[in-house]
């Protein structure tokens, strides 16, 4: 009998232990009163966090959680957890276009006036604008980002276009690249990068995807700004590039890395892309997949214009650090962000990840200037960069744009502006599916 009972007791014991572990799994999941759960979007954030934790003298440590690689994947994970009021989240890395959506839903803790002052001082205009919603700062800018026009110096003469001599237009690029038998790489893939491109083109043409004032009205009252000359100009340029010989193979499925691959190829000529590519060229040279002198042939200039006479509106990206409204350690999180987003951290981050800092002063750092010879261009770009629409319904906005503007070779300046505008407004009014 004893022999029979033992396993039963053991079974009860393990069942209890299992039940307890399941219960604790449902709990806050904190690793101690000083442990802040920090959701990072870039691996390089972890190095900075490790230093900050060491420097805090035990005031806080981090439990690092990595968000998915894609912008949309990161948004979905944060959105799901925050909507479920996940108390285990303290600091979250938010892609700026998604901030308004989270803030409007009450998922983020607003920074106080004093904190706003602290985290805004010295920050460039682009990153600052996209961290603010309804006159409140919701994210401490960690880095800003803007796209540049990259070109191969060796093709300029044949193409008859010289971006180093002054601003160039998309039409000039397409024509020049076709003439020289080289490619113009842009992001035609149906994901957030397509939204970035559409927004840059519409803004460069003097328009906006959403009509002004749309950030404070209910979804069904939001008005699109695509059925305009600017919408037509964007459709025309995207279509013209997609059907021209200058479009790299696989244009409609090309993301940033595919664009870089196309630019690095023998027939690479021009590319619009984020500055991380500069550090990526180094990595490719080290790997041996690019010749050692490849970078000597690479030049950079301001983002291309739509009209020769109108200033271009370069895309704006980056990352902000926000505090979850459901965190039980919000004050400690603010203290940690002071270190995580400090000038020193931004310098480190820019050097390792290749992403431009949000603080203007970082661009004067000698080490940064040496590593990024285009530092001034990036700083100017960040100041003039145009954020994607600030909307509490950004998910619907980007989803509609990605549906309506893809594939680029099917666009038409006659029909796309109206079709895309109708789709956008219908989706926001819950009248159509995407």
């Amino acid at each position, binding site marked *: 009998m004893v022999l029979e009972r033992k396993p039963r007791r053991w079974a009860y014991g393990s069942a209890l232990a299992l039940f307890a572990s399941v219960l604790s799994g449902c709990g806050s999941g904190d690793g101690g009163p000083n442990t802040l759960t920090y959701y990072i979007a870039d691996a390089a954030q972890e190095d900075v966090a490790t230093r900050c934790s060491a420097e805090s003298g035990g005031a806080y440590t981090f439990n690092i959680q990595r968000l998915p690689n894609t912008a949309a994947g990161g948004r979905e994970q944060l959105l799901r957890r925050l909507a479920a009021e996940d108390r285990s989240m303290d600091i979250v890395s938010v892609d700026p276009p998604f901030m308004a959506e989270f803030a409007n839903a009450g998922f983020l803790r607003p920074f106080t006036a004093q904190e706003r002052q602290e985290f805004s001082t010295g920050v460039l205009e682009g990153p600052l604008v996209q961290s603010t919603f309804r006159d409140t700062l919701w994210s401490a800018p960690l880095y800003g980002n803007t796209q540049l026009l990259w070109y191969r110096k060796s093709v300029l003469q044949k193409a008859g276009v010289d971006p180093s001599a002054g601003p160039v237009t998309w039409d000039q690029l397409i024509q020049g690249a076709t003439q020289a038998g080289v490619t113009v790489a842009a992001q035609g893939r149906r994901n957030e990068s397509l939204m970035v491109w559409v927004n840059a083109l519409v803004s460069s043409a003097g328009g906006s995807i959403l009509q002004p004032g749309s950030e404070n009205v209910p979804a069904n009252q939001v008005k699109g700004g695509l059925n305009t000359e600017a919408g037509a100009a964007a459709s025309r340029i995207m279509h013209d590039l997609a059907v021209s010989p200058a479009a790299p193979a696989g244009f409609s499925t090309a993301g940033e890395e595919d664009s870089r691959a196309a630019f690095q190829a023998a027939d690479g000529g021009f590319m619009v892309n984020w500055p991380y590519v500069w550090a990526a060229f180094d990595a490719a040279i080290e790997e041996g997949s690019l010749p050692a002198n490849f970078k000597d042939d690479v030049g950079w200039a301001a983002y291309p214009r739509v009209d020769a006479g109108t200033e271009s509106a370069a895309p704006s990206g980056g990352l902000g650090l926000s505090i979850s409204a459901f965190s039980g350690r919000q004050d400690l999180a603010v203290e940690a962000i002071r270190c995580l987003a400090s000038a020193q951290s931004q310098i480190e981050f820019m050097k390792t990840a290749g992403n431009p800092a949000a603080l203007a002063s970082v661009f004067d750092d000698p080490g940064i200037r040496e590593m990024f010879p285009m530092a001034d261009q990036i700083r100017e770009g960040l100041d003039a960069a145009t954020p994607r629409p600030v909307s509490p319904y950004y998910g619907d906005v980007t989803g509609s744009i990605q549906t309506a503007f893809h*594939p680029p070779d099917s666009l038409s300046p006659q029909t796309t502006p109206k079709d895309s505008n109708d789709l956008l407004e219908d989706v926001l009014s819950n009248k159509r599916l995407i």
Partner: protein
Amino acid sequence: MSTVEAPPREPAAARRPRRIRLTDRARHERNLGWLLAGPAFIAMVAVTGYPILNALWLSMFDYRLTDPGGREFVGLGNYAMILTDGLFWQQFGITSLITIVTVSVELVLGFALAMVMHRALYLRTPLRTAILVPYGIITVVSAYAWTYAFSNTYGFVNPLFGLGDFDWFGGTWSALFTVCVAEIWKTTPFMSLLLLAGLAQIPDDYLEAAKVDGAKAWQRVKRVILPNMKAAIMVALLFRTLDAFRIFDSIFIMTAGAQGTETLSFLAYRQTISRVMVGLGSAVSVILAILVVLIAVLFVKVFKTDLSQQRGER
């Protein structure tokens, strides 16, 4: 000569369960059965029943997760909107196409593989393992593998067939082709496994008798093997059709739904997860669930699929 005849079947009405007075032992066994199965039953109801009912309830609201204050009861409004939207029907068409193409090809290939596994005299175990390996691979992993294979920059498919830099994912039909290839590669082993079970049930005597009667190989397949495998084939088709109709992973990884390759599961995902329109997404999911039930009913009632085959009750 006496013949043994099966007892005549009772009329349908007589086969209805009758109230029988249970013996103590039977009652005890029945109670024990409930005690043993009860916890699992309750857990199942909790984890499946509650979400299903909740989805039905949510599907009647215009409800955005990021705007809880704007939640509004719309009755069957979401269903009406979905069923009158061209996108739904387009994606229904794509889903049906993928289902029909993949299941048909899998049936033919699966049957061939089942025959190979059944007839192999040497290296039976390694052969069966090799055939079943793709089924053991996680769908997301296999989808990535095929994405790389069909990539126009580093894939092996284009160089192998001399296709230059052809972009498989740049057009609807070519992208659908890649998705079907990935699905077929991944799930044919499952089909062949189900068919192998049916094949193993055919007594060798039947085939030998057919051989003695002079039936050729093709005639044996057509006249003996296939008719005796009908039940197994229908079960295999039912399982795979239900699975194929809910296809999501491969498309999510390979095309992300671009180029018109979105399916109904993708539609539900986009509304629920990307747009956080929980009400609308739940309505799409409910419609998808109803369609899946209809397919099951079609197989069981119209094609008379005998599921007891699968439970080994014959």
